[in-house]
């Protein structure tokens, strides 16, 4: 009897889970991981001249390089967002905010993934004013001044979108907000590696997005606890 009651309760909890927001998606233990590389010749990243903003220039011993096609040893691609674009059950945004910094007249991180509805906090750590101007098209476009010492800007996005971010005062500053419908995403480091963990068994579409070369997708099926390896290769153009 007690056992039956427990099972009933567990069943009720499961039903409740399905319809409630704010709870994490059903956890699994399958994973998809791999590497993002390029073929061809990527453009040369150029040193950024920050002499017009001495307070930033002096923070960098060597010039900061542009980051639109950042590469690593072994023809790897950095700052590629790899995420589940189909097959993932809707996962509510986590309560933890993501943090975006303006430091040394650079955006840190260069590419910031977040979930739809997740809080985003934007900080100005510099001794100069920045205007933070995310050029959204699907979401509302706004543009705010954030002088040195201002409190963080708290915001969020309601729809998935790849949003270029710029500072009009310092035209070399470029970054991306990547607003996703999934909690399963990964940004490649200099080694080009990505890993999507905690997936329930199922059939997924995995998409890799690079700011200059766009998106490509692969369909992957994983069983419970299975680890699958897939790789992405972008065709690099020198311009």
């Amino acid at each position: 009897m007690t056992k039956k009651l427990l099972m009933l309760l567990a069943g009720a909890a499961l039903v409740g889970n399905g319809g409630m927001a704010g709870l994490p998606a059903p956890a699994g233990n399958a994973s998809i991981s791999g590497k993002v590389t390029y073929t061809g010749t990527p453009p040369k990243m150029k040193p950024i001249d920050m002499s017009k903003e001495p307070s930033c220039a002096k923070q960098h011993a060597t010039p900061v390089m542009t980051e639109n096609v950042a590469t690593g040893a072994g023809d790897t691609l950095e700052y590629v967002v790899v995420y589940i674009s189909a097959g993932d059950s809707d996962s509510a945004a986590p309560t933890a905010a993501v943090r975006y910094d303006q430091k040394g007249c650079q955006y840190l991180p260069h590419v910031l993934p977040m979930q739809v509805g997740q809080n985003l906090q934007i900080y100005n750590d510099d001794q100069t004013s920045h205007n933070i101007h995310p050029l959204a098209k699907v979401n509302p476009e706004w543009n705010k001044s954030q002088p040195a010492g201002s409190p963080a800007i708290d915001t969020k996005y309601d729809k998935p979108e790849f949003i270029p971010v710029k500072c009009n005062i310092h035209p070399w500053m470029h970054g991306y907000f990547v607003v996703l419908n999934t909690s399963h995403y990964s940004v490649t480091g200099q080694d080009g590696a990505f890993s999507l963990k905690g997936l329930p068994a199922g059939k997924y579409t995995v998409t890799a997005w690079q700011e200059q070369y766009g998106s490509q997708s692969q369909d992957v099926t994983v069983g419970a606890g299975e680890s699958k390896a897939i790789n992405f290769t972008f065709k690099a153009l020198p311009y």
Partner: protein
Amino acid sequence: MTIKNLFVVFALGFAGLFVAGATSSFAQSHVNSPDPSLGTPNVATETSHIGNLTGHAEEGKHLYRRYCIGCHGPDGDGDGMNAQWIDPKPRDFTQATFKCRSTPTGTLPLDQDLYNAITRGFVNSNMPSWNPLTPQQRADLVAFIKTWSPRWAKEQPGTALQIPPETPVTIDSILHGRELFQKMECWKCHGPAGHGDGPSAATLTDSKDNPIRPYNFSTGTRFKCGETNQDVYRIFMTGVDGTPMPSFADVIKPADAWDLVHFLRTLQDMDTKEAELWKTYVAAHRADIKPIGPDAAGGQ
């Protein structure tokens, strides 16, 4: 060739010209409907409310075809036949991003804001004042403009900025405004003397990557979004969306904002109380005035 034949040739020629003219204007005589899957407001039911006027999108659609389509285009995306010759470019209504708002940056404007923009026109652009249209016609146009973006079906306009009563114009107010002009780094784009020639001016682009110039205070009397002190207050507090001009609403306190308005007036070549006070002050205190810009004490 007889005189009569010649006449026939001419007549045919004129007829041909007429047909050609009619065809080319026909190319943009039809207003397209947005893709219904976008969820844009219904033209048959969308309205606007300006004071006690109610504008109707269905009426506005006919007016749009007559007065607006040439620049703003049959799809409302700012790509009309004339657009290629125009700088700054006509507004793209499908983005629902508007320059002159009383509402916070990133939010939809009030109907009244759009009505004011149509009525006022935009100085230094090809958008004339549509004051010759009746208030009802302008209200109808506002209603129709809102049928181009799904945002108008899903979102409410932002809450209008509250502007407190103007503080007295004093030299202290102007001097404090000048400190803000330095501290907020307005000069980075607008230049130390407000001539639109700051260090970042040359690289500015709007949100569609077209080059854009910061306002040069010395050239004229009018701003894009109005000409009164209240308008100036509103412009820098809510920002000019779609351009590099950000909103300062989160970082300038209301009382301080009036000080900045008073200082900005001294940058214009106009007979204002602000300019008079400033000239008198400069004549007496020239040596005490620190320059604005990167070399100013307290600057970076």
